[in-house]
């Protein structure tokens, strides 16, 4: 990201003003993060204390919420984590493969109908999932795919997440064309140019795609709720939802413990991939 000198800002009250800005920014940040911190601290509190004490330090430290939440549902929680990981891994592989292939064609190849198809691709980004979900459900039901991971993974192998095609097209267009034209003169076919030149140079775009696919798929609730109805196939979000519903007197300590675990991987990817996340969102507006 380009930085610019901020000479225009008046420096009259320099010090005090800057201090005030930082205090305000930190204070606001704390207010924003307080619910998250409260959730983590509550996951170590006995349920009665969650409702009586807003402090972040548990008076009684209850690590048992974690094992208790882990086994509270029909299957142990790692079963749902594993299911989520299978769906996530399949989605990442699908998006990386299919979207990068389509992006290469749109960014580098001349073919009849390119503009038209590119326009259609862009339009599909805006399409609400609700318009297609009913027929998709019927289609997958006819294929006997309900309560399998196919409805969640196969569409990714078919490049239906068009955001990522767009992201990669933008990226590949920025790569110097001389490289692949030189390779073509030397007799390289498209497969080799794609695999040996364009893909390795597109690592930042591929990383952005992988990270966003992870976070979206891990968070996705709507399609997993619709396609997975058998507890054995539940993913983390769907399992969490049954946790809320299963007891009329919800045991909030264990529920918060599992919620904290559900947020863990996103937090990890956030820390590891911040650079890509910020660049990805600044250039394409995905979130």
């Amino acid at each position, binding site marked *: 990201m380009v930085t610019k000198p901020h000479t225009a800002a008046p420096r009259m009250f320099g010090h005090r003003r800057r201090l005030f800005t930082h205090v305000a920014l930190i204070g606001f*940040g704390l207010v924003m993060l307080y*619910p998250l911190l409260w959730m983590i601290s509550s996951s170590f509190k006995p349920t009665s204390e969650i409702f009586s004490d807003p402090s972040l330090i548990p008076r009684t430290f209850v690590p048992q919420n974690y094992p208790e939440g882990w086994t509270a549902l029909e299957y142990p929680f790692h079963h749902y984590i594993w299911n989520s990981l299978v769906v996530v891994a399949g989605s990442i592989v699908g998006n990386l493969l299919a979207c990068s292939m389509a992006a290469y064609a749109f960014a580098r190849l001349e073919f009849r109908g390119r503009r038209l198809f590119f326009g259609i691709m862009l339009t599909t980004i805006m399409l609400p999932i609700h*318009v297609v979900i009913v027929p998709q459900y019927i289609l997958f039901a006819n294929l006997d795919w309900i309560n399998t991971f196919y409805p969640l993974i196969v569409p990714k192998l*078919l490049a239906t997440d068009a955001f990522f095609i767009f992201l990669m097209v933008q990226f590949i267009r920025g790569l110097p064309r001389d490289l692949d034209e030189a390779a073509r*003169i030397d007799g390289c076919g498209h497969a080799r140019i794609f695999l040996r030149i364009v893909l390795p140079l597109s690592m930042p775009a591929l990383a952005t795609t992988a990270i966003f696919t992870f976070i979206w798929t891990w968070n996705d609730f709507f399609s997993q709720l619709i396609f997975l109805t058998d507890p054995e196939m539940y993913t983390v*979000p769907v399992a969490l939802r049954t946790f809320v519903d299963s007891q009329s007197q919800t045991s909030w300590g264990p529920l918060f413990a599992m919620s904290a675990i559900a947020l863990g991987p996103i937090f990890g990817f956030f820390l590891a991939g*911040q650079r890509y996340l*910020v660049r990805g969102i600044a250039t394409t507006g995905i979130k």
Partner: protein
Amino acid sequence: MIGATRERTAPPGAKPPPPRATRRRAVSRLRRRDGLAAYVFLAPWFVGLLAITVGPILASLYYSFTDYSLIGDPQWVGLENYVRMIGDERLHTSLGVTFTYVFVSVPLQLALALALALVLDRGVRGLAIYRSVYYLPSLLGGSVAIAILWRRVFGADGLVNQVLGFFGIQGEGWVSHPDYALGTLVVLNVWTFGAPMVIFLAGLRQIPVMYHEAAAVDGAGPVRRFFSITVPLLTPIIFFNLVLQMINAFQTFTQAFIVSGGDGGPSDATMFYTLYLYREGFGNFDMGYASAMAWLLLAIIAGFTAVNFLASKYWVFYGD
């Protein structure tokens, strides 16, 4: 010229590059083979487009004119589903809830995003840290875990009321009160202002400093510079964020589903349109009506996006 430069920089003993004419002919011969290769590279996307997107769009349009419960064949009923929508009180409620949510939460979210982007753009130290902290909720906001947290934070004995109690204020059970339940979801959406903020920050970086300097020399104060320079030059970004966030907000589902316990309560105060659609389609298995509802949603989103684009002519300035 280019050829000459190349020859000069070529390592000794390297094969001289082909003359330009030959090279161009070779490239154009390769171009002709592009067509076939392109279709090979696009094959997965074509299959997906037909089977997962266009096919279902057409099917959905067809189902919207039928009575279909997954058992037996769809029965053609003409416009019946659409007529039913006109008299469906609950659908009207869900539209009202969704419109209120979109038109309250999106402007608030964007205003907050812009305000913080402006503060952060003034060269505060630790920008990267602040940006990350404020952005984090955007990644988490759509998750079930956060919706569960929200339900508890705004519960009768939740965090918000504990904090209010500290100041001697007796709070409501916000999520269970028909007047306030939607407000808690608005707060949740505003909380995810980090994503548009990052886009605003990127946009602010594009405004040349010299404009501000020139205006400052001419005696324009910070407020004047904000409205005369920053805002006009930022309008394309404001527009982009507005369109994007509106489209997203119209499709809100997870938060509404979890916070309301799946039934849009209390008294349908959080019966979002998508939640009602889900219940009609996958609760009552009324696939025809759900399809018709999906088309109304598409029409609404397309309509508002079109209005945005038309109105943008009057307030969005594209420089050069």
